[in-house]
């Protein structure tokens, strides 16, 4: 069966500090991978998605970036965090565009 991992579970970072969140998927190959952000009490905002190694599509202009160095690894980064980057970051995978998505447990980021 497929499993998706995210770490860390929670993170408190000062404004201006860098960020690296990691997501890995087990039990499947060549998945589509996604990064979402959810502000408190709000909906799911798609940040990036990837259909393969090195292929990243950005949905929202921001100070975040994503990379996919391996088939089942997806990384979300920032060089300098802003207060507005606080939120619940979710990684998800699917078999392809339009298929159901399965979410990781999420990382709760607080920028202070």
């Amino acid at each position: 069966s497929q499993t998706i991992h995210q770490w860390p579970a929670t993170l408190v970072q000062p404004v201006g500090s860098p960020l690296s969140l990691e997501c890995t998927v087990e039990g499947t190959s060549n998945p589509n991978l996604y990064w979402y952000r959810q502000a408190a009490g709000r909906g799911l905002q798609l940040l990036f998605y990837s259909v393969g190694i090195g292929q990243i599509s950005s949905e929202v202009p921001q100070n975040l970036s994503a990379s996919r160095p391996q088939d089942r690894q997806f990384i979300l980064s920032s060089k300098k965090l802003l207060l507005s980057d606080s939120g619940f970051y979710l990684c998800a995978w699917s078999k392809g565009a339009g298929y159901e998505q399965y979410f990781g447990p999420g990382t709760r980021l607080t920028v202070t």
Partner: protein
Amino acid sequence: QQPVQSPQAVILREGEDAVINCSSSKALYSVHWYRQKHGEAPVFLMILLKGGEQKGHDKISASFNEKKQQSSLYLTASQLSYSGTYFCGTVWKELSFGAGTTVTVRA
């Protein structure tokens, strides 16, 4: 293009029914439904692909209208475990989620 969900919130007593609607201005390839409990990640409930399709999952079911522009999620004889935020998702380039409907079921 983000789908429109209604209502924003609903409060139920155990055993009551509720309907959540999800609509788009254009015909859709498919509609997804997810539930997110407080502090947790969203969980996939079901996907509807065909106009006129209906699907069930325990006492939670959904329909997709013939024109494929609206879907409804039905919570029947609600249980405390049904509490959470329900999101519909519609597919264009990729999945786009509605703003969510918060369901609170009280004893």
